[in-house]
C-alpha cells in the first residue's frame, strides 16, 4: 500500500532548463481537424432573409449550430453539457431568433442566428418539459409559451421575462398535459390527456393567463396526444386512431364531442399494424395552421388531406412515398414528397436493391395537391449509406415567382446530404463521426497498383508454371508502375509546386517515405465504418452496417497488415449485442472498405471476449480466438494449419476475463482440444468496490531500453512484464470521507498480485495509462478537492533475473515499486501515451482536457524517482526536483488554438520515423496531428541549407583537385631544379 506524500520543495524549480527537452509541434505541418455536430434532432432553415445561407441544427449531442448551406461548413457552434443537463428539448425559430429549451425544461435561451450570440437566457421553474410554442397576436410574434408537467408559462420573446405562469388544473393523478398550441387569436391552449379516458383542453388568455375555458372530451382510445394528434386549420384538433382506423376531429373553440371519421369513408386504408400519424404545418405562429395536412397510412404511404368547412377532403394519395415535408416561402406552401424512383417495386421487399436505388423528390401544391412543374430532384442514395430518415426542405421563390427548393436529407447513418435541383449534391456531412467508438490506423499499401495486384494473387494458383507466370507478370506490372511513377516524378518536378495536384483518392493512395500517412479506420456508434486519410481528412470509404443494435459493443482488430503484399489487409470487427450477448464478425479490407470474401464463422453462442494471437496462418492472417460463455474457444481463421499451430502452442496461451458485475477476475489456460481450464480467480467484493477498468499493455509497444541509468552509472532494470494488468476499482461508498480508488497490478498468466495501491479519500473517474514499466492514473481527491496524478513504476532491481526470456511462471522476486503523486490543475477527459516505432524516443502523455486542448505532458515530470533533495547523482540522471504541482504550460498544447470538443479518446500510432508519433483525438471533433516527444532528431531541419552544404562540398572537392595538380607541378619543377 502506498500513500502519497506531498512535500513542498524549498527551492523553486528552474523549469526552463528542462524546457529545451520538450518536443514541440512543427507549426508548418498542418494538422487535420474536422468539426461535427452529431445526429440532428431539429433543423430549421433561416427564412427571414431570402438569400440566407444558414441552416440551424440542434442535435442529440447537445450542440446547437449554424451550417452554411452552400458548403456544409459550420458557421458557429455551441456545445452544451453532455447528458440530460444539456439536452435540447425544443428548437423554435422566428425571424432572427432561435429559442431553445435546454435540459428538460431547465433553461430557456434565445440565440441570434446571424452571429450565434446569446440574446438572453432564463432559468425556468422546475418540472419536466412537455412542449413549447410561439404565441402571436395580430401578425406579430411576441411570446413563447412553455408547457411543463404542471404549469404553463408565457415569456416575452424580446427579453425572456416571464409574463405569467399558471398551474394547470389537475383532477387526476395520471393527468398529463402534452401539447401547447396557439393560433394567433389571443388564446393559448394546453392539451392534456388522461390516457384511455378523455382529453382536457384548457384555454388561457394571453394577456393575463386567466383560464377562459376548460373542455373535457371523452377519448377512451387516446394515450398520447403528441404522437397521434395535430391541430389543423382554425383550431381543429385531428387525431388518428389505429384501433378503429379512423380520424377524430375536435373543434377547440366550441365545446363539442369528437366527431369520428372512418378512414374508409375517405377511401383510405391503413397498413395493418401501423399507427397512423398526422403531419400539419403552421408556418406563421401568429396565424392558425394550414388546413392541409398529411396522414401517414403506412411505412411508405402518405395521404394529403384538406379540412374544408369542417369536412375532410382527400387531395392526393402518395404511394410509395418515403418521406414528406411541408415548406413555406412567401405566401406559398408546398409539400415535398420523396419517392423511390422505380415505382413498381416496393423498397421494403429487398433492402439491397433499395439501397442502390435513387429517389426522386417532387413538389406539390399544398392547396390543390397538384404537382408543380420542373420540380423533380433526384437523390442518388449512397449504396454504403442508410435509408432516408428525415427531410428538411428549403423553399424559395424564383424570379418568375415559381417555387424552387433545396433539400437536406438525413439518413439512418446520421448523414446529412444537401441537394440542389436537379440532383446535384452540394455537400454531405458524416455526423456519425461525432461518435467514434474505436479506431485503428492501418499502413497504406506501397503503391496503388500493388493493391490492385492483390486481387490477382488472392486466388490460389495451381501448378508451378502458372505460379511462375503469375509472378513474372506481376513483376512486370510492378516495373511498369515504377517507371510510370518515376516519369510522373520527373514530370511533376518541372511544374511549379502549387500546380501539382494532391487530391487523395482511393486510386492514388500510397504509402509515403516515412509512413506518416495512414488509413484511419473508424467505427462509429451508429454502425457506420469510415476509412479516412490521416493527412487530409478525406473520407475515402464508408460502409454502413445496418441492423446494429443501439447498445452494441465493438472491438476492432487488424488481422493482417499491408505488409504481406499479395494478400489484402484484413480487419475484423466484432459486434456484440449487449442484450442477447450474441456477436457477429464483419471482416473487411481496411484500405478499400470492401467486405471480405472470407465468410466469418457463425457464432451461435454468446461471446465473452476475443483474443488476437501473434500466430499467423499460412495466409499471414493473425489468429483470432473467440471465447464463448461456455468458456470454449473457437478460432478464426480455423484452417487445419491454424488448429495444428494452436495445439502446439496451447500450453502457452492464456487469457483472462473480467466480470465487473460479479467483481470477478479469472484466468484461463487453453487446452489442446480448444477447451479451457480456469487457473486462477480473484474476487473483488462488489459490496465494497467495483472494477472500473482493466488495462494491459499495447501489443505493438516496443521498449528499447531495458533499464535506467543511475547517477553512479549502474543500471536499474525495468520490470517489463508483458502479462501485467492494471485493474482500477472504485469504492461503492461515495461518501467523501470513505470513498477510495484502488489500483491492482495482477499478472494475467498466474493471477499473482504484484502490487496493490489504495488512494484513500479519492474518487473516480479514474483515467489510466499502462505502458512499459509504469502506470499513470488520475483521480479526484475528495480530501483536498483537486485532481491528482499518480505514477507507479516497477523495477527489477540492479540485476536482471533472466535477460533472455520472460516467463510469468518463473519470477521468484517481486519487483520494486516506486510511487509519487502530483497535483494537476485541471480535470481531464482522456489520457494516452505516445508510441513510437522502436521505443527509443522519450514518452509523453497526451492529456485531453475538457477545455478542448490536448496537452503533451513529458513523462519525465511523472517520474517517481524525482528527488525531494537535489543531489549530484540526481542531477547526473537529469531528474527534475520534486514539486507537488504539475504545471500546464500553454506551449505544451499540441493543438494550439484548434480546440477539440469533448475529447473522448486519443489514439496513438507509430510512424516510420522513430521521432514521430501520430495522434488522433476523437470526440465531437476529430483531430489528427503528429507529435515529436524528443523533437525531430532523425529529420533534417526545414531550414537546413542544402545549397550551402553542397556548394561547400563541391568547392572543397575542386579545391583538392586543383591543389593536387598544383602540387604535382611544383614537385616536378623542384625535381627539374
Amino acid at each position, binding site marked *: 500500500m502506498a500513500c502519497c506524500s506531498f512535500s513542498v520543495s524549498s527551492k523553486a524549480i528552474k523549469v526552463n532548463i528542462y524546457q529545451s527537452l520538450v518536443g514541440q509541434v512543427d507549426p508548418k505541418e498542418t494538422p487535420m481537424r474536422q468539426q461535427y455536430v452529431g445526429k440532428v434532432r431539429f433543423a430549421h432553415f433561416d427564412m427571414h432573409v431570402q438569400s440566407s445561407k444558414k441552416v440551424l441544427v440542434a442535435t442529440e449531442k447537445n450542440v446547437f449550430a449554424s451550417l452554411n448551406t452552400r458548403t456544409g461548413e459550420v458557421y458557429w457552434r455551441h456545445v452544451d453539457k453532455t447528458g440530460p443537463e444539456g439536452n435540447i428539448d425544443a428548437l423554435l425559430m422566428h425571424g432572427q431568433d432561435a429559442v431553445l429549451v435546454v435540459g428538460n425544461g431547465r433553461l430557456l435561451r434565445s440565440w441570434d442566428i446571424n452571429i450565434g450570440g446569446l440574446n438572453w437566457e432564463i432559468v425556468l421553474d422546475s418540472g419536466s418539459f412537455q412542449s413549447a410554442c410561439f404565441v402571436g397576436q395580430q401578425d406579430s410574434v411576441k411570446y413563447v409559451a412553455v408547457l411543463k408537467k404542471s404549469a404553463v408559462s408565457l415569456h416575452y420573446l424580446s427579453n425572456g421575462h416571464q409574463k405569467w405562469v399558471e398551474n394547470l388544473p389537475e383532477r387526476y393523478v395520471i393527468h398529463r398535459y402534452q401539447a401547447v398550441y396557439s393560433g394567433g387569436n389571443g388564446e393559448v391552449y394546453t392539451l392534456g390527456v388522461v390516457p384511455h379516458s378523455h382529453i382536457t383542453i384548457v384555454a388561457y388568455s394571453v394577456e393575463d393567463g386567466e383560464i377562459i375555458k376548460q373542455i373535457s372530451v371523452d377519448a377512451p382510445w387516446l394515450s398520447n396526444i403528441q404522437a397521434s394528434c395535430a391541430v389543423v386549420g382554425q383550431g381543429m384538433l385531428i387525431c388518428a386512431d389505429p384501433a378503429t382506423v379512423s380520424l377524430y376531429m375536435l373543434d377547440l373553440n366550441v365545446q363539442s364531442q369528437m366527431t369520428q371519421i372512418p378512414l374508409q369513408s375517405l377511401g383510405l386504408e391503413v397498413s395493418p399494424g401501423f399507427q397512423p400519424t398526422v403531419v400539419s404545418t403552421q408556418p406563421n405562429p401568429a396565424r392558425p395552421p394550414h388546413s392541409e395536412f398529411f396522414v401517414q397510412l403506412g411505412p411508405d404511404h402518405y395521404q394529403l388531406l384538406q379540412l374544408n368547412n369542417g369536412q375532410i377532403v382527400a387531395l392526393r394519395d402518395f404511394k410509395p412515398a418515403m418521406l414528406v415535408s411541408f415548406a413555406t416561402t412567401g405566401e406559398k406552401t408546398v409539400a415535398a414528397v420523396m419517392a423511390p424512383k422505380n415505382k413498381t417495386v416496393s423498397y421494403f421487399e429487398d433492402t439491397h436493391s433499395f439501397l442502390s436505388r435513387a429517389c426522386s423528390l417532387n413538389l406539390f401544391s399544398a392547396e390543390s395537391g397538384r404537382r408543380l412543374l420542373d420540380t423533380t430532384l433526384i437523390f442518388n442514395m449512397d449504396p454504403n449509406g442508410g435509408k432516408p430518415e428525415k427531410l428538411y426542405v428549403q423553399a424559395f421563390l424564383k424570379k418568375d415567382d415559381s417555387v424552387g427548393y433545396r433539400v437536406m436529407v438525413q439518413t439512418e447513418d446520421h448523414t446529412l446530404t444537401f441537394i440542389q435541383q436537379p440532383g446535384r449534391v452540394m455537400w454531405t456531412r458524416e455526423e456519425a463521426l461525432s461518435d467514434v467508438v474505436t479506431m485503428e490506423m492501418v499502413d497504406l499499401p506501397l503503391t496503388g497498383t500493388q493493391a490492385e495486384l492483390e486481387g490477382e494473387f488472392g486466388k490460389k494458383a495451381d501448378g508451378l508454371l502458372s505460379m511462375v507466370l503469375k509472378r513474372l507478370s506481376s513483376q512486370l506490372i510492378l516495373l511498369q508502375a515504377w517507371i510510370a511513377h518515376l516519369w510522373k516524378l520527373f514530370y511533376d518536378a518541372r511544374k511549379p509546386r502549387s500546380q501539382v495536384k494532391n487530391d487523395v483518392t482511393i486510386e492514388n493512395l500510397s504509402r509515403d517515405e516515412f509512413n506518416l500517412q495512414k488509413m484511419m479506420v473508424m467505427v462509429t456508434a451508429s454502425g457506420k465504418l469510415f476509412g479516412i486519410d490521416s493527412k487530409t481528412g478525406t473520407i475515402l470509404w464508408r460502409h454502413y452496417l445496418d441492423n446494429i443494435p443501439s447498445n452494441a459493443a465493438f472491438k476492432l482488430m487488424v488481422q493482417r497488415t499491408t505488409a504481406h503484399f499479395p494478400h489484402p489487409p484484413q480487419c475484423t470487427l466484432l459486434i456484440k449485442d449487449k442484450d442477447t450477448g450474441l456477436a457477429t464478425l464483419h471482416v473487411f479490407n481496411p484500405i478499400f472498405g470492401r467486405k471480405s470474401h472470407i465468410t466469418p464463422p457463425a457464432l451461435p453462442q454468446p461471446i465473452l471476449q476475443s483474443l488476437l494471437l501473434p500466430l499467423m496462418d499460412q495466409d499471414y492472417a493473425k489468429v483470432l480466438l473467440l471465447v464463448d460463455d461456455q468458456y470454449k474457444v473457437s478460432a478464426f481463421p480455423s484452417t487445419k494449419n491454424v488448429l495444428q499451430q494452436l495445439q502446439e502452442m496451447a500450453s502457452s496461451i492464456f487469457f483472462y476475463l473480467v*466480470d465487473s458485475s460479479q467483481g470477478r477476475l479469472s484466468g484461463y489456460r487453453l487446452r489442446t482440444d480448444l477447451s479451457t481450464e480456469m487457473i486462477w480467480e480473484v474476487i473483488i467484493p462488489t459490496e465494497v468496490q467495483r472494477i472500473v477498468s482493466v488495462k494491459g499493455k499495447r501489443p505493438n509497444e516496443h521498449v528499447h531500453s531495458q533499464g535506467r541509468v543511475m547517477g553512479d552509472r549502474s543500471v536499474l532494470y525495468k520490470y517489463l512484464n508483458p502479462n501485467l494488468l492494471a485493474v482500477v476499482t472504485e469504492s461503492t461508498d461515495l461518501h467523501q470521507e470513505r470513498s477510495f480508488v484502488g489500483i491492482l497490478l495482477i499478472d494475467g498468466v498466474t493471477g499473482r498480485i504484484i502490487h496493490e495501491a489504495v488512494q484513500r479519500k479519492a474518487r473516480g473517474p479514474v483515467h489510466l495509462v499502462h505502458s512499459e514499466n509504469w502506470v499513470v492514473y488520475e483521480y479526484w481527491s475528495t480530501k483536498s478537492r483537486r485532481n491528482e496524478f499518480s505514477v507507479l513504476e516497477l523495477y527489477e532491481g540492479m540485476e536482471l533475473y533472466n535477460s533472455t526470456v520472460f516467463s510469468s511462471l518463473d519470477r521468484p522476486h517481486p519487483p520494486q515499486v516506486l510511487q509519487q503523486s502530483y497535483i494537476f490543475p485541471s480535470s481531464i477527459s482522456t489520457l494516452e501515451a505516445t508510441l513510437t516505432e522502436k521505443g527509443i524516443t522519450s514518452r509523453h502523455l497526451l492529456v485531453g482536457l475538457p477545455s478542448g486542448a490536448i496537452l503533451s505532458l513529458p513523462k519525465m515530470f511523472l517520474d517517481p524517482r524525482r528527488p525531494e533533495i537535489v543531489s549530484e547523482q540526481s542531477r547526473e540522471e537529469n531528474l527534475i526536483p520534486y514539486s507537488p504541482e504539475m504545471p500546464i504550460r500553454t506551449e505544451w498544447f499540441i493543438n494550439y488554438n484548434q480546440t477539440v470538443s469533448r475529447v473522448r479518446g486519443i489514439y496513438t500510432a507509430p510512424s516510420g520515423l522513430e521521432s514521430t508519433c501520430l495522434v488522433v483525438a476523437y470526440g465531437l471533433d476529430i483531430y489528427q496531428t503528429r507529435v515529436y516527444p524528443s523533437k525531430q532528431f532523425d529529420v533534417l531541419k526545414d531550414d537546413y541549407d542544402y545549397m550551402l552544404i553542397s556548394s561547400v562540398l563541391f568547392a572543397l572537392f575542386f579545391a583538392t583537385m586543383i591543389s593536387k595538380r598544383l602540387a604535382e607541378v611544383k614537385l616536378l619543377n623542384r625535381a627539374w631544379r
Partner: protein
Amino acid sequence: MASPGGQGGGALSTRGGCGVRRMKWALELSLGNTRSRSDRQGGQGDVVYPIGYSEKPVPDTSIQETDKNLVEKRCWDVALGPLKQIPMNLFIMYMSGNTISIFPIMMVCMMAWRPIQALMSMSATFKLLESSSQQWLQGLVYLVGNLLGSALAIYKCQSMGLLPTHSSDWLAFIEPPQRMEIMGGGMVL
C-alpha cells in the same frame, strides 16, 4: 625620350600594377631588368657554373672523434623523452578537467595517440639507439615511459567516463527478453 611627363621609363617600370596600367608606353633599357624575368631566371640563366660545382654546401664528412658519453647522453635523452612528458601530461590533464567537450577530448586523443605511435615505431627508435651500449635498458625505459603515457591516457578516459566499464554502458545492447506466454482478454464485452 618622348615621354610627355618627362619621367624615365626605368623609374616607371618599378611601380605597382596600377601605375603600369596608367602609363601609355614604356621602354625597357636593359634586358633582364624587369622583376618578373629576374625572378624566373635568377641564378640559372646567365651564370653558368663550372662542371662539378654544386650549389649546396657539401657536409663535412671527416669523422670527428667525439666523446662516447655524448652519444650515450643523446640516447638517454631519447629513451627518457616519454617519461619526461608525463608531468606535462598530468598538468594538461588537470587543467582540461573531466567535462566532455572538444578540447579535453582532443587532449586525450593526443595523449593516447602519441605513446601508441611511439610504440608502433619502436624498431625505428631501436635503430636510433643502436650505437648506445645500454641499448636494451634504454629501450626498456622508452617502452615503460610510453606505456605509462598510455596508461595515463586510459586513466584520463576512465575519469572522463569514456571507458565502457559500467553495466549502463552495455544497456543498449541488451535485447528485449522473449516472452514465453501469450496472454490476452479483457472485460467481458
